[in-house]
C-alpha cells in the first residue's frame, strides 16, 4: 500500500489504475514557484540536439540532425547546421576551404541573395523550413 489511501482504494476496487483522485481532491493545477533567483547558469550544459556515432565492420559512422542551436536559450535562435556548404579540407586541396565562413552566417546562407534585404534584421528569426 502506498501513501495515498484514496488511490489504494481505487486500485483495490478495480484491480488497475483508474483516473487518479488524490486524497486532497482532484489534483492541483501545475504551479510555477514564485520568483527565485535564476540558477540556470549554475548547471552549464550543452543544449543542442543529439549526435550519434557507432563503429561497424570496416568503418565508423556518425549521424546528427541538421539543426544548429544557440546556448542556454534552447528552442530559440536556431539556425541550420549547414550541410551543402560543408566542404572537405583535404590536405592537398586547399581551395575547398572557401565557403567555410558560411558557417558563421547560416541565416545569410539560408536565404538566396535577392531575398536577404527582406530578411528581418532582428527580433524573431525567420522560419527556414
Amino acid at each position, binding site marked *: 500500500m502506498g501513501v495515498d489511501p484514496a488511490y489504494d482504494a481505487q486500485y483495490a476496487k478495480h484491480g488497475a*489504475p483508474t*483516473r*487518479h*483522485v*488524490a486524497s486532497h481532491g*482532484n*489534483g*492541483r*493545477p*501545475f504551479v510555477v514557484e514564485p520568483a527565485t533567483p535564476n540558477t540556470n547558469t549554475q548547471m*552549464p*550544459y*550543452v*543544449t*543542442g*540536439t*543529439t*549526435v*550519434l*556515432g*557507432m*563503429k*561497424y*565492420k*570496416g*568503418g*565508423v*559512422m*556518425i*549521424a*546528427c*540532425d*541538421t*539543426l*544548429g*542551436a*544557440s*546556448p542556454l536559450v*534552447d*528552442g530559440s535562435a536556431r*539556425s541550420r*547546421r549547414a*550541410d551543402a556548404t*560543408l*566542404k*572537405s*579540407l*583535404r*590536405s*592537398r586541396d*586547399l581551395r575547398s*576551404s572557401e565557403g*567555410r565562413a558560411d*558557417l*558563421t552566417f*547560416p541565416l545569410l546562407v539560408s536565404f538566396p541573395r535577392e531575398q536577404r534585404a527582406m530578411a528581418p534584421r532582428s527580433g524573431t528569426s525567420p522560419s527556414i523550413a
Partner: protein
Amino acid sequence: MKVVNSTTIIGFTGELSDFDYIMTLLNELSTTDFCEDDGKELSPMEIHSYLTRVMYNRRNKFDPLWNSLVVAGVKNGRIFLGMVGMIGQHYEDSHIAAGFGNHVARPLFREKHSDDMSEEDARTLMESCLKACVMRDKSMMNKFQIAKVEEGKAPEISEPFSVATEWNLRSYHNPTEFAPGCW
C-alpha cells in the same frame, strides 16, 4: 558535421559559432600539414586528443566552448570513435551519443550494437536510434545526415533524409490520464 581531413570527420552539438571557431583551429592544423608537404596528416586520435586539450583549456578560463564533439575516423586499420564534452571530459567507445541521445539512443546501442556488424545493419540500427531520438526530444528535427569513414576511402556525408515516425501508439492517446495536475 564536417570533414576534417582524409581520415577524420567531426560531429557537433551546441553552439554553432563556437564550433566554427573549433574548425578554424583544425583548419590551421590542416594547413600546416599541407605546407609540410610530407604526405602526413593528423590521425583521428590526434585530433581527438588535441580537442580535449582545447576544450579543457577554455574551461579553465571559465569561458568554455559550448559544444559536445564526436570525432570519428579510420587510419592504419584502426577505427576510432571518440567524444569530447564542453568542459573537456572525453572518452572513446564503440558507440557514442552526445546530448539527449545519451539517455535515448545508448540503451538501443547497448542492446543491439556489435563492432563487426555490417554497414547495412549499422545503418538500420542508426536510423532506429534517430527515430527514438526525434520522437522523444522536442528540439530535434526530422532531417538527418549520416557521415561515414572507411579505410582507404574519402569520408562521405550523406544527403539529408527523414525517418518515418509513428504517433498512433496507445500511450500517446491520453498521456496525462493518470497524472493529476497536468494539462
